[in-house]
């Protein structure tokens, strides 16, 4: 059955991939977001220091006796000292004319007021420039002083490198944890499905009862349709078994009547050909009623196998009992039973089923044994309780041996012998119901051997 199920992508793999993929995307998002945010904050920090420097220089600008003086404090540039020894550039302008500092420093027009910061390239390196301007009242009118202070970004880059490393580590940690979690979540999710599969796989072939264990809400539709399907299957199986049993039963009673009539008629007819016809009629009736009986037995076994009533029994006692009951039939064919049995072979099993199986096996041996022969019956106890029945008949056809336990299967050499093909099936079913085995073999000296072990 399993090899006919077509597999699509595994649920576990899909779920894991989706979760890991999601975690990777999240980790990347976190990495870029935090880095971007940190960059902004670090840049803001640098801009603030540059702004403070610019302001302190601007604040120092005064017009004294008509001349501009900018006696800016030592701290104006001192505050720009960084751990990475960033280079510092500045320029002071009056109405757009360079007064002092670095004349080629990139410039932007700025209105008097709050400082403005931007990134530019100066002397081959990227620098952050902050500019602010201030209006002064001179004798000849208004004058605008603007100051730019620039700084390389080595310290900032170092900070960002550190932050990037930390954030990358954090992102990787997050990703690893999310991966571990996704594996855990996947197996937790797949778990109930696996348990359901296991519980169904472990069932016996006859067990069609509904799944009783609680299942997750998502699986309820699946399990209820499974239960439903099994219920219907069970019902229809039971129906067909019942039908067979009913039919066998219904056939058996009229057959008995027909047989007794046929026997009575046999006593009365004289003509040889009529008698012959009647005898074959009786034999056919016997065969039919025997088949009906075995069908009934089989139906009964199928039913009882589900509800095994185990008792502790002595296998020897069971066998000798059946043997003594079949003794008269054997005598009619001049067949002798040679029983070798340990006095007590304890087994735990259903007595009715076991009797049925053993009777069928001995019956078979009787049927296939030639006249004036011996049937060897051994009952012994080694690892398991074991019953061996060997006859001196034609033996099992070796090439058919495996299929003989199937329903209605009969050996190629069984022609002319009444039989339904259910005897070995019944014995096999009983053995399996008791967790035992039925093994067919042939004796080297000729004859079939059946070993029934429990």
């Amino acid at each position, binding site marked *: 059955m399993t090899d006919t199920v077509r597999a699509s992508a595994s649920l576990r793999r899909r779920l894991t991939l989706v979760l890991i993929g999601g975690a990777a995307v999240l980790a990347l998002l976190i990495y870029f977001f935090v880095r971007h945010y940190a960059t902004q904050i670090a840049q803001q920090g640098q801009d603030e220091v540059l702004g403070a420097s610019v302001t302190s220089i601007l604040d120092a600008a005064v017009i004294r006796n008509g001349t501009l*003086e900018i*006696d800016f404090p030592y701290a104006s540039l001192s505050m720009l*000292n960084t751990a990475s020894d*960033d280079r510092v550039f500045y320029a002071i302008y009056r109405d757009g004319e360079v*007064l002092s500092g670095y004349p080629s420093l990139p410039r932007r027009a700025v209105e008097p007021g709050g400082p403005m910061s931007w990134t530019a390239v100066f002397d081959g390196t990227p620098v952050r420039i902050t500019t602010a301007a201030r209006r002064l009242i001179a004798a000849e009118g208004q004058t605008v002083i603007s100051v730019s202070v620039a700084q390389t970004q080595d310290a900032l880059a170092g900070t960002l490198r550190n932050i990037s490393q930390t954030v990358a580590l954090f992102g990787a940690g997050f990703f690893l944890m999310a991966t571990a979690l996704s594996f855990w979540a996947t197996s937790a999710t797949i778990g109930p499905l696996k348990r359901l599969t296991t519980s169904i796989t472990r069932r016996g072939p006859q067990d069609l009862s509904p799944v009783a264990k609680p299942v997750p809400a998502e699986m309820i539709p699946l399990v209820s349709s499974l239960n439903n399907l099994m219920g219907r299957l069970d019902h229809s199986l039971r129906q067909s078994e019942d039908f067979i049993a009913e039919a066998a039963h219904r056939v058996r009673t009229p057959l008995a009547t027909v047989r007794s009539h046929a026997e009575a008629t046999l006593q009365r007819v004289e003509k040889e050909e009529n008698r012959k016809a009647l005898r074959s009629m009786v034999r056919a009736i016997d065969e039919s009623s025997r088949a009906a009986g075995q069908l009934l037995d089989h139906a009964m076994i199928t039913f009882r196998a589900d509800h095994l009533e185990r008792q502790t029994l002595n296998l020897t006692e069971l066998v000798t009992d059946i043997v003594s009951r079949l003794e008269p039939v054997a005598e009619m064919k001049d067949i002798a039973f040679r029983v070798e049995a340990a006095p007590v072979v304890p087994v735990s099993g259903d007595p009715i089923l076991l009797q049925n199986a053993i009777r069928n096996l001995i019956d078979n041996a009787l049927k296939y044994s030639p006249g004036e022969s011996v049937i060897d019956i051994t009952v012994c106890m080694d690892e398991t309780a074991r019953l061996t029945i060997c006859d001196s008949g034609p033996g099992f056809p070796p090439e058919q041996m495996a299929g003989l336990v199937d329903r209605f299967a009969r050996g190629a050499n069984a022609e002319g012998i009444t039989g339904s093909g259910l005897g070995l099936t019944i014995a096999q079913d009983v053995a399996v119901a008791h967790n035992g085995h039925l093994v067919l073999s042939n004796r080297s000296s000729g004859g079939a051997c059946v070993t029934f072990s429990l």
Partner: protein
Amino acid sequence: MRYLFALILCLLASVSGAQDWEDRQRFGPADASRVLRVLSSTDTALFEPLLRSFVAVNADTAIDYLVASTSELDQIFRQTPEAYDVVISSAMDLQFKLANDGFARPLEDFPYPGWAQWRRSLFAFTSEPAAIVINRDAFAGLDIPHTRQDLIRVLRDRPTLFQGRVGTYDVRQSGVGYLFATQDARTSETYWRLMEVMGGLQTQLYCCSGEMIEDVASGRIAVAYNVLASYAVARADLADQIEVIVPSDFQTIMMRTALVSARTPRPAHAQVFVAHLLRQKAAAGGGSATSLPGLDLTRDAAGQSTIPLQPALLTYLDTLKSAGFFKDWTDAVIQ
């Protein structure tokens, strides 16, 4: 390209040939395979042992040791940075500006404490305080000044004795003099009071520490302010005539710095030379009496009282700022 090359050669010739050096000496074998051109503000005598030990170890290298004053040196180097391999100067601010303006080459794989270097391109290797140098005879019977206040008091008390007999750097000429003056001025107002007093006494102005020391020793002036103590101490022959006093109120301590030119044609050898220089001076953690006092690298930044190597050194190099300072200084000193 060829014209450019020729032009550079011409420039080189004109610079090396026409330049008027304070001193110029060559160390090492005449047939050396390469010559390192070292531009320095340090008197050759103070550097000679170090240069000799370098050429002794590096036999195939000779050194052309060129001496100029700190301001000249800065101008010369800015004009033709490719003509020199190493620049050594006591003017920390000018050196810092050179490094900040990209004239210095960063040295790779060169471990050095952060406070004693800047951007791995400017390296400090000495620790030299500015000192008051007095003539022992002139101060006979007077209190020896140990602070700037003491010096002001002594000068005020004996104006006739000191009239025309005090000296200091002419900050308009000397880079290191300007550095000492600006650092003094930013540290304490006492500096301006001292300058006014000295100005009132018709102070003599000098370009260099060496001349000031000579004049103090000869008695031409009685006291010199902001002299490089290292130079004065190094003159063991004048120890009987002069006394070197490092002020105890606050000290202005300069670090001599070295850099490798960013455009040197011999970067590897220049680095070897600077490494030798730093090893000899700084690692020694204090020099002998005849050489410059080395830097104690075992102490951390917090334990330093030297002028820190940081962007604030650019402050007094600003044209507006220096114009203001020169004006104030001239007002005070030249009356």
